[in-house]
C-alpha cells in the first residue's frame, strides 16, 4: 500500500478539484473511482493489492448504507478523496462518507408538474467540483459536490410519457458533459449530446440515426429512420491522445419486425467514434446490420494498447450482445478479429470486414423462431474488465436462447414499438458464465458457471482478483489466473451493477450496490 499512500497525499494536495488531467490519469489514483467505468479506457483494473488472493477469504462487512429505495440499483458509485457519490434512480442522489457509510447530503430532482417519469440510474460524472447526472424525464442535472445543491439543469428532449428517457452516467471530457438518450423500444430517434459543463448549454448533438440525404440515411427504407431507435444508453469511453470518444448505439426499431425498415439501419448496433469537441463522426463499425433480435451494441467499448500480431496497436474490444467478441483498430475502426464466445445460431461467421454471414434461419416469425443468444444477448451492459498482469479480458456471459416472434406493429406515440415478443426456451435451462478470454486470440482461458444468467459486472485488482456478482445476489472473488472461487457472500437480491474498489487512509474497500443497499467490505 505504500504507493497508494503516496498517491493519497498528492491527491489531497489537489483539493477537491477533479481536473481533466486527473480524469486522464484516473488509473494513477487507484484509491479513487473517478468515472463511471473507473477511468476513460474502462479496463476497470485497480493497482490495489491489500486485498489479495491470500486474504480475500477474510473480507468482513465494513458498512451498509440504505438508500431507502427499492428496485433495481444499477448505480456505479464514484469515490473522490474519501467521499462516495451515488444515484439511486428516479432522480434521487446522495453523498456518503466512504469510510463509515454515513450520509452527507441527499438530492431529489423536482419533476415539472404533470411529469410522472421513473427510471433506473447508472450514476454520476464529476468534473471540477461539480457532479452530473441525468433524470428519468431526460434532464442533465449539475450539482455542487460539496452540498448537493443544484447548479443548473438542461433538458435533453421534452418529456412525453412512454417515449425517450435517460438513465446513463454522463461522461466528462475536458469542459463538456456527454450524455445519450434511452428509449429504443419507444420509437425514438437516438442521439448523443454534449453540454457545457459550466452553463448547461447544449454544444452539439450527434444523431445516431441519419435521415434521408445524410450519410447513412439510405440504409433505412422509406421514412423508417424517423422512428429508427438507436438509443445510446451506456456511457462511452475516451482516448485523450486520439481525442476520440467511443459510444455503442442500440437496437433499431421496431425491435423484432425488420420488414418496415429494410436496409442496414445505420448506425444502430454499431460502435461510433466521435470527436468530443465537435460531435463529428470519425468512423463507425456496425456489428449487427439490420438487427431483428434487439442486440444493442451498448456493451463496453474497452480501450486496450496491445501488441497485435507483434506490433503495438491501439485497440478497442467489445464482447457484443450478438455473442461475438470483436477487436477493432480504434484509430480507424478497421476490423481485426471477431469470434463467437458462446453458442450462437444466427451467423455462419464473419467475413473479412467483420460483417456477419447470415445463417438465413434466424429471423423472428409469427410462429416463433428459436435463436441463440437470447434477446438479452450473450453479453450486455454488464461491465467487463481487463487485467494487465494476466493479460486477460473478463466478462459476464448470459448463456440462453429465446423463441423470437414477429408481427407488424403500428407506431403510436407513447406506446412500445416492438414488432412482437421473445420468450425463453423451455427445453434448455439458461445459465451464466464469468469468462476469462485472451483478447488477442478470442480463446477462453477459463469459465466459472453461474446458476442463472447474470446482470452484474466485474472488477479486476492487482491483488490477483476478479470480483463479480450474480443473479442470485452473490458478490464473489475469483483468482484471476485460474478462475477459482476464493470468496463469496450473499447480498440477498440480484446484482445489477458492478463492484468497485477504493482506499482511504491506507485501507482498501470493495463496494457493491444491491437492492436498496450499498454494501462495503474490508479486511478486519
Amino acid at each position, binding site marked *: 500500500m505504500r504507493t497508494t499512500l503516496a498517491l493519497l497525499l498528492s491527491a489531497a494536495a489537489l483539493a477537491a478539484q477533479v481536473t481533466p488531467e486527473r480524469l486522464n490519469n484516473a488509473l494513477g489514483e487507484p484509491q479513487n473511482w473517478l468515472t463511471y467505468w473507473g477511468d476513460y479506457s474502462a479496463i476497470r483494473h485497480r493497482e490495489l493489492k491489500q486485498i489479495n488472493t491470500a486474504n480475500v477469504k477474510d473480507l468482513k462487512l465494513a458498512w451498509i448504507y440504505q438508500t431507502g429505495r427499492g428496485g*433495481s440499483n*444499477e448505480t456505479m458509485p464514484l469515490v473522490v478523496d474519501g467521499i462516495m457519490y451515488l444515484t439511486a434512480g428516479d432522480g434521487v442522489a446522495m453523498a456518503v462518507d466512504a469510510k463509515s457509510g454515513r450520509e452527507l447530503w441527499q438530492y431529489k430532482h423536482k419533476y415539472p408538474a404533470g411529469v410522472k417519469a421513473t*427510471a*433506473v440510474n447508472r450514476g454520476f460524472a464529476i468534473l471540477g467540483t461539480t457532479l452530473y447526472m441525468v433524470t428519468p424525464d431526460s434532464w442533465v442535472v449539475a450539482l455542487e459536490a460539496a452540498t448537493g445543491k443544484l447548479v443548473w439543469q438542461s433538458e435533453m428532449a421534452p418529456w412525453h410519457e412512454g417515449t425517450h*428517457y435517460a*438513465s446513463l452516467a454522463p461522461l466528462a471530457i475536458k469542459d463538456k458533459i456527454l450524455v445519450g438518450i*434511452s428509449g*429504443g*423500444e419507444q420509437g425514438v430517434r437516438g442521439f448523443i449530446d454534449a453540454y457545457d459543463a459550466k452553463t448547461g448549454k447544449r454544444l452539439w448533438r450527434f444523431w445516431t440515426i441519419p435521415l434521408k440525404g445524410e450519410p447513412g440515411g439510405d440504409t433505412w427504407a422509406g421514412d423508417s429512420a424517423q422512428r429508427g431507435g438507436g*438509443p445510446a*444508453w451506456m456511457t462511452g469511453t475516451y482516448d485523450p491522445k486520439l481525442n476520440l470518444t467511443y459510444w455503442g448505439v442500440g*437496437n433499431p426499431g*421496431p*425491435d423484432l419486425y425488420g420488414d418496415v425498415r429494410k436496409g442496414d439501419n445505420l448506425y444502430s448496433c454499431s460502435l461510433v467514434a466521435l470527436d468530443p469537441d465537435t460531435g463529428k463522426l470519425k468512423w463507425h463499425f456496425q456489428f449487427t446490420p439490420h438487427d431483428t433480435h*434487439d442486440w*444493442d451494441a451498448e456493451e463496453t467499448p474497452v480501450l486496450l494498447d496491445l501488441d497485435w500480431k507483434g506490433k503495438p496497436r491501439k485497440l478497442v474490444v467489445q464482447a457484443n450482445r450478438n455473442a461475438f467478441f470483436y477487436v477493432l483498430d480504434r484509430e480507424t475502426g478497421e476490423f481485426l478479429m471477431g469470434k463467437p464466445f458462446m453458442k450462437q445460431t444466427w451467423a455462419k461467421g464473419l467475413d473479412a470486414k467483420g460483417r456477419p454471414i447470415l445463417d438465413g434461419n434466424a429471423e423472428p416469425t*409469427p*410462429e*416463433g423462431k428459436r435463436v441463440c443468444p437470447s*434477446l*438479452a444477448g450473450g453479453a*450486455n*451492459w454488464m461491465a467487463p474488465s481487463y487485467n494487465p498482469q494476466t493479460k486477460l479480458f473478463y466478462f459476464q456471459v448470459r448463456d440462453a436462447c429465446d423463441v423470437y*416472434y414477429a*408481427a407488424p*406493429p*403500428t407506431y*403510436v406515440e407513447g*406506446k*412500445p*414499438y*416492438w*414488432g*412482437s*415478443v*421473445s*420468450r*425463453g426456451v423451455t427445453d434448455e435451462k439458461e445459465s451464466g458464465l464469468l469468462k476469462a478470454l485472451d483478447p488477442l486470440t478470442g480463446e477462453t482461458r477459463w469459465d466459472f*458457471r*453461474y*446458476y*442463472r444468467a447474470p*446482470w452484474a459486472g466485474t472488477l479486476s485488482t492487482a491483488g490477483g482478483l476478479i470480483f463479480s456478482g*450474480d443473479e*442470485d*445476489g*452473490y458478490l464473489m472473488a475469483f483468482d484471476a489466473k485460474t478462475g477459482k*472461487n476464493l470468496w*463469496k457472500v*450473499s447480498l440477498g437480491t*440480484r446484482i*445489477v451493477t458492478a463492484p468497485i474498489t477504493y482506499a482511504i487512509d491506507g485501507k482498501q474497500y470493495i463496494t457493491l450496490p444491491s437492492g436498496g443497499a450499498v454494501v462495503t467490505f474490508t479486511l478486519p
Partner: protein
Amino acid sequence: MIRRTLWFPPLAAALALAAHAQVSVPLGAEQGLAVFRSNCAFCHGADARGGRGPSLITAHMAASQDAEIRGIIKNGIPGTTMPAFGSLEKDDLDPLVTYLRSLASSGTPSAKATGDAEAGKAAYAANGCQTCHRIGFTGGLYGPELTRVGSGRSLEYIKESIVNPSADIPAGFEGVTVVEASGKKSTGIRINEDTFTLQLRLPNGKFASFDKTTAKSVTVLKQSLMPPYKLSGKTLDDLLAYLESLRGSIVTGDSAGKAKGIQ
C-alpha cells in the same frame, strides 16, 4: 431493451409487447391470431386446444360473454398461472377476443371426460395419489396441488401427467439428486437453487438445504418423481372425470379468510 427494468422474463416480454398497437384495422381474427401466437400459445397450445393451460375451445368458452373473456385476459386468474395482460390495449384485445370467439364457434369443443367422477375419487384414494398431492389442505406436498387442476390443465395434459409424468414436468417440480461429501444421497423436488446452494423438498415434506460446492454430485433428473401409472381404461377414465371436476378456488393472500382481531 433492458435499460429500465433489466430483467426480462418471458412474461414481462409479453407484457411489454402487449401494448404494441394496431389502429383502425378491421378487427379481424387474423390479427388476433398473431397476438395469440406470441402471448398465449405458449400455455394454451398453438391450436388453443390446451397444454399447460386449458383448452380454449370449450362449451364453457362458447357460453362466455366477451366482457368476461376480456376481464380474464386483463386481470388474469389470481392464484393460478394464468397471467394478467394488464397492458394489452384495446387494439390488440378486441381482435384477440374475436379470434377466441371464432375458435369457440367453429371448432368442435375439446372432449370432456366420460368416466364416473365418484368412482374416480375412490381410485384416487386407492392409488395413494394423496400421499403426494393436496386437494385443499388435505394431502402431501411432494407434487403439485390439484385443488383446481380441472380448470387449469387440459384433459390431455392431465391424462399424460398420469400415464407418462415425465413428458412435461412443471416448473417448480423438477427432481434433483444430491450426493453429499459423506456419500449420503438425497432426492427431492427442487424448491430453490443458486450458484452455490440447493433447497429440496424431501418425500417426507420437509425442506433440506445443500452446499453444492462440497457435494460430490448434483443431478437434475429427467424422470418425474411421480411414478407412471398403468391403470385399466375404466379406472383411468373415472380418475380423469374426478380430476376434471376439481375446480376449487386456490386460497391466496387476497382470498384467505381473515379472522377478526383487535380493530
